[in-house]
């Protein structure tokens, strides 16, 4: 067991636990965006920042990827953390203002304005869909392409992937593309599953007992 203190409260947790899990265990809320239980932590959004160590040597880390250490001192809501977190929210708003998930986070933290150049991206590169597709759906149909400013998300060669199961898992977890994946702009769709033209459970034998996240689903409606 590893002993640490979070906001002054001592706690001992198993080795390998992340700071985020330990804090949530004690009931301290830490907002997250690119973190989902059941998916490998990725550390993309930095919303879950916490401060570790004692001043003046303390530093900010992403709690979802930081494993607990013996004697670690963590603050989840220090002035520095709150400031950094508000900045992250502003940046998210700057790139993806139409996302319901991001709007909700902003309003919960009372961020009403952002001071950066306004953009309208349909992806914040959080990697949730990639991990969902690979780790839960065992498909590996979508991934990151390119680098830097040109980094984007989609299928290889931008054509419908032959390994995609049309399960809708990627859309289910995406914090940004609820607006985009309605297939009214086919060239912006990631996997095309949202078009739901051929519900997997109906047409694809091998997918009989798989999870499916497609909503709304035509086939579901008919079966009822």
């Amino acid at each position, binding site marked *: 067991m590893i002993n640490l203190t979070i906001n002054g409260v001592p706690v001992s947790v198993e080795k390998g636990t992340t700071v985020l899990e330990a804090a949530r265990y004690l009931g301290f809320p830490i907002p997250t965006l690119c973190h989902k239980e059941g998916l490998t932590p990725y550390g993309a959004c930095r919303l879950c920042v916490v401060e570790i160590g004692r001043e003046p040597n303390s530093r900010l880390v992403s709690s979802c990827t930081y494993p607990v250490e013996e004697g670690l001192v963590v603050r989840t809501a220090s002035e520095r953390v709150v400031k950094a977190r508000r900045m992250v929210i502003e940046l998210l708003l700057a790139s993806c203002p139409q996302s319901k998930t991001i709007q909700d986070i902003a309003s919960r933290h009372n961020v009403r304005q952002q001071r950066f150049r306004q953009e309208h991206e349909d992806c914040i590169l959080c990697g949730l869909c990639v991990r969902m597709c690979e780790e839960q759906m065992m498909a590996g149909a979508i*991934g990151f392409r390119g680098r830097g400013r040109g980094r984007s998300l989609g*299928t*290889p060669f931008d054509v419908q992937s032959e390994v995609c199961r049309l399960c809708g898992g990627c859309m289910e977890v995406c914090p940004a593309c609820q607006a985009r994946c309605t297939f009214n702009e086919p060239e912006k769709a990631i996997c095309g599953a949202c078009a739901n033209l051929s519900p997997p459970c109906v047409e694809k034998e091998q997918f009989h007992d798989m999870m499916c996240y497609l909503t709304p689903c035509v086939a579901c409606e008919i079966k009822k």
Partner: protein
Amino acid sequence: MSSEEIEKIVSDYVERQGSIIAVLEAVQNRYRYLPEEALRIVARQTGRRLVDIYGVATFYKAFSLKPRGKHLISVCLGTACHVRGGQAIAEEFMSQLQIKAGETTPDGEITFETVNCLGACALGPTVVVDGHYYPHVTRSQVGGIIADALAGMERDDGAAGARLFPIHVSCPNCKRSLMDYDRRLDGHPSIACVIAYDGRKGRLGLSSLYGSRASEVELEVPMNEPCRFYCPHCHEEMPHYSNCVECGSPMAALYIRRGCAYEVCTSRGCPGHLLNLDQPNMK
């Protein structure tokens, strides 16, 4: 292009446990770009997912998913080359070739691209044509470089990871040039030194192409025996600052420019050499 051929290239690498990047490089060296089919074959034969292979292929600027011209001209716009005027060189290429960066001339001869650092910053502005490095390029050289490219340079496919570019060195003691314009090696002026072994002296000519091992020795020296290196002008011995990583013998340091040395292993037959861009003794 045939699938069997691609499969052959890939399986050669898989057997040698080459990395994905090495496999893709080999495929690109053969076809000058990465055809879609090739990526699918690489994924299948390495047991990786196509998304991952595609991710790697699109991550590096060196890989192209679009067919490229017969010759590739890359102009460096990395920080060091940029401050030395790389942008003007790139613009000159674009206006002479009448294409933009990343495009290929309509006749399919030349693809022009800009890159961010070729790892030869001391030589900037740097231009690379089919694996051959042109150092300190000026605008007036652009036309000649295009002509060289069209005439065809022997393609260096980077198989050994060697980078070939010409360097110009002088004696660290008297600062006189060691370049011998009459005796050429690899088509470039050679580097002339005097070496001594067992009380005898003789001329040594080294290729000035960095990465090339070509040399001419006019003195019998048994293999793997270190010699002493002297300047043919002032007859002072070349300084030694480090030992060869290959064989441990002392390296002779030649002067490139302030703070920058070309070090060669003094042992006969040893390929050890390096470019030391931060050699305080050369200041």
